[in-house]
């Protein structure tokens, strides 16, 4: 507070938080100035989310102090923090699934007098908020019908409240594509311009380059250092992991040619995918790119028997598996990694081991007949956890006690355990730190090298660009392009994503 230009809005000292078996935060000091974007950087499980959940009043620390505008405060809950102008986008969303988008946007601060809600104003406010983000979604839709990315947008829109002094964003772009991210960045910059202090958590180096004024690095719950925003990537990664990371993306092997999975004119019942024709080949990595809601996930889910198929056919190794149940598709050697780990992946209240081994229980390595072999099971799960570098690598902890990125690593590791021949990976690296990504990309490429068919559905363009032999681009539920080799570049993909041949925006 000596330097008026660097007025500190938020300062924490000696923050400590312990969970059973884990010290999530260990005496962390942190300060946030007015009008800066302060990035929190660290490996999965470093304690970033824990830190911001304490600052935003969602959790209580076991030790340490919090000051807002120089005054020590006790944050009894989110409402108290909000009263001080602190607002957060949480990594795990805070949306009410059975309520509309509009209601979610205003919840906790509904407009109206004497306890009565002015419903027209709620809708108008919500619409304004959505327009500000250029986000095309009806305020009357129920949140439970939104895709994860759409929910993320709603979550972001919700956090941008009018009277803000501290804005916290925990991996806000994890499920977003370039388009929406870009929009978010300009809003963040605008907010910074207005003197709002912003805590920003991300694993994407490009975003740090783009936004950060300062970067604070955490490791194992401890503060490592705070460095200026211009610090080179290598150095940041070195600070974070304690080692040097070379190339992020490995060399791709030669693609194979044998068709393993083929979809012809596939249309889903809800119309999210229409007349999609695509195929996956052994030894090849295929990418699905597309904007939010373009149907890229739905297409893969339809292959795995998770969506009602209206017309078209799906064959796997020549066998017709249109409308087969997931169990049947799995028997054919296909495995699917869902994009929404919370609702479709994890057995949250069970030990992570059970999530990991669930699809593979019938394997001889885990059971004999219907009888499980607990020792073997633990060993299999533990090996995987160590291979995927989960922290802590204890398969007996419940799944919900892992950090977001570690959960993702666990699920991905589970998919890789299967010895399958076809891998459908929907947003495989959401929330995974840079260091761990290298391992994951290596493993994906290794899968292809061994002759498996791999599908990578990703909102992250670099993944599509560097990891795929062939790319299908989705727009409005249809495939607008199939690109290979040299055609796979940013401009081409973006052009097909936007589907410039069609007046897309006008419908809204």
């Amino acid at each position, binding site marked *: 507070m000596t330097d008026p230009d660097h007025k500190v809005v938020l300062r924490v000292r000696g923050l400590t938080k312990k969970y059973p078996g884990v010290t999530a935060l260990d005496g962390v000091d942190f300060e946030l100035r007015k009008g800066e974007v302060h990035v929190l950087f660290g490996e999965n499980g470093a304690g970033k989310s824990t830190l911001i959940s304490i600052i935003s009043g969602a959790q209580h620390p076991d030790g340490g102090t919090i000051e807002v505008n120089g005054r020590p405060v006790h944050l009894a809950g989110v409402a108290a923090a909000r009263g001080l102008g602190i607002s957060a986008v949480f990594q795990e969303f805070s949306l009410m699934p059975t309520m509309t988008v509009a209601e979610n946007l205003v919840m906790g601060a509904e407009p109206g007098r004497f306890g009565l*809600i002015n419903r027209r104003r709620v809708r108008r406010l919500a619409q304004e908020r959505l327009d500000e983000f250029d986000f095309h979604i009806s305020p009357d839709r129920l949140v439970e019908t939104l895709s994860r990315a759409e929910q993320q947008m709603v979550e972001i829109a919700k956090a941008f409240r009018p009277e803000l002094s501290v804005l916290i964003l925990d991996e806000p772009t994890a499920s977003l594509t370039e388009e929406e991210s870009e929009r978010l960045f300009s809003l963040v910059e605008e907010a910074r311009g207005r003197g709002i202090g912003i805590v920003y958590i991300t694993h994407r180096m490009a975003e740090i380059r783009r936004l950060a004024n300062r970067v604070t690095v955490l490791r194992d719950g401890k503060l490592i250092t705070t460095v200026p925003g211009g610090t080179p990537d290598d150095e940041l990664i070195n600070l974070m992991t304690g080692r040097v990371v070379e190339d992020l993306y490995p060399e791709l092997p030669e693609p194979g040619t044998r068709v393993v999975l083929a979809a012809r004119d596939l249309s889903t019942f809800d119309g999210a995918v229409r007349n999609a024709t695509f195929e996956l080949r052994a030894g090849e990595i295929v990418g699905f790119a597309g904007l939010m809601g373009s149907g890229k996930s739905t297409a893969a889910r339809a292959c795995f028997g998770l969506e009602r198929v209206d017309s078209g056919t799906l064959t796997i190794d020549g066998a017709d598996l249109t409308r087969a149940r997931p169990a049947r598709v799995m028997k054919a050697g296909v495995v699917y990694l869902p994009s929404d780990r919370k609702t479709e992946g994890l057995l949250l209240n069970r030990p992570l081991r059970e999530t990991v081994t669930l699809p593979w229980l019938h394997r001889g390595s885990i059971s004999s007949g219907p009888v499980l072999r607990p020792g073997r099971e633990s060993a299999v799960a533990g090996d995987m956890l160590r291979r995927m570098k989960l922290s802590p690598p204890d398969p007996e902890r419940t799944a919900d006690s892992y950090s977001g990125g570690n959960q993702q690593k666990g699920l991905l590791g589970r998919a890789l355990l299967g010895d399958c021949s076809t891998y459908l990976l929907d947003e495989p690296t959401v929330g995974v730190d840079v260091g761990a990504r290298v391992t994951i990309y290596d493993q994906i490429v290794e899968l292809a090298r061994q002759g498996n068919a791999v599908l990578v559905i990703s909102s992250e363009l670099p993944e599509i660009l560097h990891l795929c032999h062939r790319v299908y681009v989705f727009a409005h539920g249809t495939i607008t392009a199939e690109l290979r080799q040299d055609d796979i570049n940013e401009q081409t993909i973006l052009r097909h994503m936007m589907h410039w041949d069609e007046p897309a925006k006008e419908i809204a």
Partner: protein
Amino acid sequence: MTLQSEVEVTARPRGSVISYAARIFVRIGVLPILVVIALITFSLMSDNFLTVDNIHSALRQNSYIIIATLGQFVVLLAGGFDLSIGAITALVSVSTAMAMSSQTGSPLSAVVIGIVVGVLVGMACGLLNGLGVASLNINPFIMTLATASVFSGLALMLTSGVPVSGLPMEFSDWLGYGSVFGIGISIWLALLAAVVLWVLLTLTRPGRHIYSVGSSPRAARLSGVNEFRTLILAYVTAGALAAVGAVLLTARLETGEANIGASLPLQTIAAAVIGGVSLRGGAGRVLDAVLGAVFIGIVANGMNLAQINSYYQMIVTGVVLALAVVADRLRTRLASAVYAGKV
């Protein structure tokens, strides 16, 4: 983007009578249709069924159940359960009657005092439930099961199981059997309760908070909703509504009874669920809960009038309950077909 509007475009050409019917069905839900089916079936089975008198009397009989269902509904919305709603009914009935019959003043004042005491007792019971759930964090199923045992015990202790009589005639004549514009007062009261509840739930901030806490307690908390206060509100409202129902029932029976309401907890939950209320909280409409209660009441009344053997009645009730839910599932399916433009 905006697939929704796009869908409408594709869907419109298929318009036909069937698709029109399907849309209506999807819009209004399955209950009105079930109610109509029940009305037709039973009027075929018994001449006395579809008479103004009988329908009126069936509604009047069920008005206290409707009101109790509204109470259950609020708690279900908030993601809870109220298994004590029957015991609250008994305890309120007993305390209203005792308060009333101990008054020596004018009948009017006795009636007013009795009602006030009853509603206060109901709210106190609700408060206890709410405190257990919201501040001690006890699972609502267990908490209300526990308080149900306590409240029943209290009601029995207060009366030793002997009905409390000696209520002013006016109480029963007016609240139990009185009419305004030819319609029973208890029906008006049920209507009033439904309207007030609708206003609370859809137009006020605390009401929306009830939905949000039921939908996702965590998300509500992270949105700055005061979970504690909201849960207390829900349970106290339920207690108050149960109390109003209990007062009406007491007026009808002309005695305070510790021995009533045993079937209410499950019956009200069933009514609410048939009305499409989610047991997972956060979803449901007042009107549907009311219709659910009315439907169950009509089926019971109709079977009695059609002189169906009481063993069969049990079987039929079970089957109807299950079918009503299946019908609602069908509606959901149809709904997605309609939205997908397939109908």
